[in-house]
């Protein structure tokens, strides 16, 4: 029988063939183009941009949870790091332009921004700093956990504790980061007035393009040899180790990458909502990210995007129409997924790129 020497590219070819991801990337690009050519009402543009930021956040979690089996219940921390550094940049830029100190700085009786704000009025430095801090925090936490083989539910609980402790820290008013009121009142973005239609559109387009890029990049990653090791590690870590692979290094690398993608989402989110406060570090927000991923379809990057957009789209709509009903609707969605569609909403369309995926070995 022809044992196909000629097709070593089997897995690699399949990696490119993911119609859902390809479709979503196309949709992002088309939406970005449409926003530029014929922008709808600014509030819709803004909502779309926020949804794109949430979708990026969901992809970052799916990368570690769906493909590596590491459920983080603290991804809000990395999102918040991106958001806070972005807010600092926006305020620092405002101070550089107007000379007026933000309210919380005046409130503390300080006459200038704290020393560690130095240089944050430069966007490139702020971007590098946000990604570096998120990566570093993830590295320290991941290194300590993975090396001492903290796994499964223990890891999830510790990650939740971490985001909670960070929230308590950020509620303090003497950190120079806005305390319990957080930071708001961003005047300018790259010298343009913050709420102007051009800035709103620009931010939404940036978020959509970033989502397209993140989806493409992560899809290539999970379709590569590294992606196959990730699935192997998820399903049987000891087996992978005894074949000569350092799973600690693999997990640490992907974990840090995931944290930086989450930070990117935070960077894009904060200028669109115009505020950041310690609420983004609330444990329930971090749990909600996992809900988006589970609803859309764990272990499928397109599923994470669909889950994030669906839940948050519904939330935008309903929290205006009937805010008190939202928690019940979210709980109902979770129950529906757990009881009827254990593989997420993608079950509805029979979407199965790899049949035996999902929670653990058969």
């Amino acid at each position, binding site marked *: 029988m022809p044992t*196909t020497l000629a097709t070593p590219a089997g897995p690699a070819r399949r990696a490119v063939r993911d119609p859902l991801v390809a479709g979503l990337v196309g949709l992002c690009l088309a939406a970005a183009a449409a926003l530029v050519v014929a922008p709808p009402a600014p509030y819709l543009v803004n909502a779309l941009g926020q949804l794109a930021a949430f979708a990026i956040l969901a992809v970052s979690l799916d990368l570690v949870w769906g493909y590596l089996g590491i459920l983080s219940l603290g991804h809000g921390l990395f999102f918040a790091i991106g958001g806070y550094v972005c807010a600092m940049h926006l305020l620092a830029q405002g101070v550089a332009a107007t000379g007026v100190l933000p309210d919380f700085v005046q409130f503390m009786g300080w006459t200038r921004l704290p020393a560690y704000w130095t240089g944050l009025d430069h966007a490139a430095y702020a971007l590098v700093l946000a990604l570096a801090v998120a990566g570093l925090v993830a590295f320290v936490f991941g290194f300590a956990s993975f090396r001492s083989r903290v796994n499964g539910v223990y890891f999830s609980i510790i990650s939740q504790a971490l985001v909670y402790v960070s929230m308590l820290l950020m509620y303090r008013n003497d950190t120079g980061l806005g305390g319990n009121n957080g930071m708001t009142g961003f005047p300018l973005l790259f010298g343009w007035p913050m709420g102007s239609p051009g800035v709103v559109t620009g931010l939404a387009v940036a978020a959509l393009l970033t989502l397209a890029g993140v989806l493409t990049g992560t899809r290539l990653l999970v379709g590569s040899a590294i992606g*196959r090791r990730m699935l192997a590690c998820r*399903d049987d870590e000891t*087996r992978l180790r005894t*074949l*000569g692979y350092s799973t600690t290094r693999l997990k640490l690398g992907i974990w840090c990458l995931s944290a930086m993608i989450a930070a990117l989402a935070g960077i894009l989110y904060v200028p669109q909502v115009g505020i950041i406060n310690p609420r983004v570090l609330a444990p329930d927000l971090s749990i909600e990210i996992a809900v988006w991923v589970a609803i859309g379809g764990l272990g499928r990057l397109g599923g994470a995007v669909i889950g994030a957009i669906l839940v948050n789209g519904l939330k935008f709509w309903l929290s205006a129409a009937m805010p008190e009903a939202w928690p019940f609707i979210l709980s109902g969605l979770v129950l529906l997924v757990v009881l009827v569609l254990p593989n997420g909403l993608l079950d509805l369309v029979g979407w199965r790129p790899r049949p*035996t995926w999902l929670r653990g070995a058969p």
Partner: protein
Amino acid sequence: MTALVVDALTVAFGRFTALDCVSLAVDPGEVRAVIGPNGAGKTTLLDVISGITKPVSGRVMLGDHVDLTKRSEAEIAKAGVRRKFQEPSVFPALTVRENLEIGCGPALPARDRPARIAALLCEIGLGARAEVPAGRLAHGEKQWLEIGMVLAAEPALLLLDEPVAGLSDTETAQTAALIRALRRPDRAILVIEHDMAFVEAVADRVTVLHEGRTLYEGSMAGARADARVIEVFLGR
């Protein structure tokens, strides 16, 4: 020079002593069978050799210089040790081909992989199933795939934990033939098995474990004649 020396190995789980001062030496080129009743400590012995369990005391020397009890699973694998688990351990989400590719280990250059994988597919008879996810294989196919995975890196020490459990008679005979074909002067094989006919067919010598201690070491024929072995194991 010996391929593997297990020297006064003691393993405890809490107060329970799973291995009690077990020693054995395997020569290069030898196929050694470890037999014994359930709970004798056979799997625990392989767990220590492959670095999954750390012993209370004792050493495991690979060649003359490397003490495996001081190393991680990945380092032990890199030193040339491969282990087949009692429960077939393949990666269910990956295809047969992808499983074998991972079995080649991180060190083998990418350009050498396709040829190695093609040869293995032939050897384990799964050529027609190369693109099937391993989670969908039958039990026997999984056993063979896992054997293929541990062979992919051409190990110097091969540990096989019940490789024919759950296989049909024909498959067992095929596996015995495969293992005999794997003998090489520079490779030692340690195989755990319950099936005495299989052990007789593949092993040069046997070690009988009972309640964490070595009961007998020598030829299979000698084991069959040994009074204590008969009493605890064969006679039942």
